[in-house]
C-alpha cells in the first residue's frame, strides 16, 4: 500500500511545501527564488495531494478556481506594469517601504506584485495541467484499478 506512506508524507510535507513556496516567492527579488519557482513548488504540493488521495478532492476544492487564478494572476501582473506609468514608463519599478512591528523593515514594490501575479498564473496553470493529466491517466486505467478507489 504505497498510499499509506504517501498519505503520511502528504500530511507532513504539504504545509512545508506551501510555506516554502511562499518564502521563495517573497525572497525572490534579490535572492534565488521568485514567482515561477514558488508557483512550481506550490503545484508540487498539489501533486502530492493528487498522488496520495486521488484527484477528486483536489478537483472539488481547488479546481473551480483555477481559471480565475490564471486570470487574476495575469491581471495583477499587467496592473503592476500599469502602476509604473505613474512614474513615467510602463513597467517601471515603483517601491515603497514599510516599518512593521513584527516583520521589521519591509520593502514592497511593483516587481514583487508582478511576481505575485506570476506565482498565481504558474500555480493555476500547473495544477490544472496536473489535474487534467490525472483524469486522463484514470481514464486509461481499467475500472477497479483506480488509485483512489
Amino acid at each position: 500500500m504505497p498510499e499509506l506512506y504517501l498519505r503520511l508524507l502528504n500530511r507532513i510535507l504539504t504545509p512545508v511545501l506551501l510555506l516554502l513556496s511562499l518564502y521563495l516567492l517573497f525572497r525572490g527579488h534579490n535572492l534565488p527564488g521568485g514567482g515561477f519557482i514558488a508557483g512550481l513548488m506550490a503545484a508540487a504540493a498539489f501533486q502530492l495531494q493528487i498522488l496520495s488521495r486521488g484527484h477528486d478532492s483536489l478537483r472539488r476544492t481547488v479546481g473551480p478556481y483555477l481559471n480565475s487564478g490564471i486570470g487574476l494572476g495575469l491581471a495583477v501582473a499587467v496592473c503592476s506594469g500599469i502602476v509604473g506609468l505613474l512614474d513615467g514608463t510602463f513597467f517601471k519599478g515603483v517601491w515603497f517601504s514599510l516599518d512593521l512591528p513584527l516583520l521589521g523593515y519591509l520593502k514592497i514594490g511593483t516587481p514583487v506584485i508582478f511576481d505575485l501575479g506570476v506565482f498565481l498564473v504558474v500555480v493555476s496553470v500547473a495544477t490544472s495541467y496536473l489535474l487534467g493529466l490525472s483524469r486522463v491517466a484514470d481514464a486509461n486505467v481499467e475500472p477497479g484499478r483506480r488509485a483512489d478507489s
Partner: protein
Amino acid sequence: MAVSANLLAVPVAAPLLTAALILLFARWGGRTLIRHQIALTALALCINLAAAALLFRAAAGQGQRFVLQLGAWSAPFGITVYGDGLSATLLLMTALVALAVYPFAVATIDYHRARMGFHPLYLFLLMGVNGAFLAGDLFNLYVFFEVLLMASFVLLTVGAQPAQTNSGIRYVVLNLLASTVFLVAAGIAYGTLGTLNFAQIAERLPLASPAVRTVFAGLLLVGFGSKAAIFPLFFWLPASYHTPPPAVTALFGGLLTKVGVYTLFRSFTLFFPELLQDWQPVLLTIASATMLVGALGALAQPGIRRVLSFHIISHVGFMLMGLAVALSGNNLAFGFGLGAAIIYLCHHMIIKTALIMAGGAVELHMGSDRLASIGGLVSRQPFLAFLFFTAAISLAGVPPFSGFVSKLSLLQITLDTRHWVVSGVSVFASLLTMMNMMRLWRESFWGDYSRPSRVPSRILQSSVRQRLMLTPVAVLVLLSLALGIWGEPAFRLSMQVAQQALDRQAYIEAVSPSAQTSTLPAGLFTVPAETVSTILSKEN
C-alpha cells in the same frame, strides 16, 4: 496631439488585460457570461484599433519612431519596444483584420467553443501578433512568437474534432521546429555578438566574421521563412488551415504568416541589407517557387478553403519578391520594392480575410466546401455572391481594386531591375490566381442549385447572425476598393514607410544602445580576435 511612447504598450497590454479579466470572471455570470465576454472582447479590439491608428498616424504619417524602454532600463539591458512606420502599418492592419473577423466569429462560433475560451484566446492571439510587431530584441520576438503560436495551437484544435487534432499535430510540430531554429539563431547572436537587441545587433554585425553573418542570416531565413510559409517550408499551412471553423481560418490567414513576412522584412533590412544584394538570386528563386507552388497547388485542391490557403502561400511569394528587390531599382525611388511589398502585404491581409470569411459563409450555406458538391448559390444568396466575386477579382488583381495597384507596383520594380524571369513568373501566378478565383466562383455560385449535403446550419436561421457574417466582408471589400482608388496616396505613404524601415542608422540612433565600445565580447562562439582586428583595420 503628441503621442507618448507608452502608447506602444497598449496593443499588448489591452488584449492581455481584457483576456485576464475574462478568465478571472469565467466562473461567474451564468448564461449571460458569453455575452459579457463578447462585449469585453469587442471593447478591447476597439481600443487596440484606436491605439494602432494613433500610432500609424504618428509613425507612418509623420515619420516618427517610438522607443519604449520598459521599466526605464536603457537599451541593451532592458526590454526595448520599438515602433516605426512598418510596425505601425502592420499593427493597424492587424487591428482592422481582428476587428473585422470578430463579428463573423461571434456569429459562427458555437456555444461549446465559446465556453472553452474562444474569446480570451482570440485576444491572446492578437496580443502575440502585436507584440511580435513591436519587439525590439530577438528574445522578446521569440517569446511573442510563442505566445501567438500557443494561442493559435489552441484555437486550431479547440473543439478537438479528429481532423483538427490531426492537423493540429502537424501544425504544432512544424511550427515548433521553426521556433527552435529561430532560438538557435538567437543563441548564436548572443554568443557571437553579445547582444540580443536589434539595434545593437545591427551595429555589431558588420564587425562579425562573414561566416557568422551567413549562419545567422540563414537560420533567420529558415526560421522566419517557415513562419511565413515560403517555398520548401510551407507544409504546415495547407495541412491545417481548412480544419478549424472558418472564423479561425480567416484570422489565421489574415495574421499569422504576415508575422513571418514582417520579421523577414525587419531582419533583412536592419541586420544585413547587403545580403539583399548578395542573396538576391536565392531570394528571387525562393519567391518564384513559392508563387508557382502556391498557385499550382491551389489548382489541384477540391475545397474552397484549401484553395484559399494555397493562395496564401502564393502571395507570400509576391511579398518575398518585393523584399528581394527592396534595395535595387534603377529609375525608381529608393526603397520602391519594399514599398510595393508593404502595400501588397496590406492588400493581402484585407482581401484574404474577406475572401476566407465569404468562403466560410458559402460553407455554412451549403454544408460543405467541396467544389464538386456545391453550386448555384447565386440565386439564393445574391449579396454573398457579389461580395465573393468582388473579393476574388481583387485578389486576382483586377482594377480598380487594391490587388491591381500592389501587383502593378511589384511588377514595375521587377521589370525595372531586369528580373525578367521572376516578373514572368509573377504574371503567370497572377493569371493562375485569376483562373482559380473564377473556378471557385463558377463552381460555388453558378450552375444548378445543389441541395446542401446536410441540414442547413441553425446559425443561418438568425438574421442578426447573417448580418454579422456579411457586414465585415462588405467593409473589407470596400477597404480594398478604397486602397485601389486612392492608390497613389497610399503608395506614397508606403514608400515613406519603406524608406524609414531601410534607414538603419536612424533605427540605431533611436534606440541608442548606450555608448559602449563596439568590440565583440568574449563568448563561447567568439570569432578569433585577429579576424575582428583585420576587419577593423580594413575599415580604417
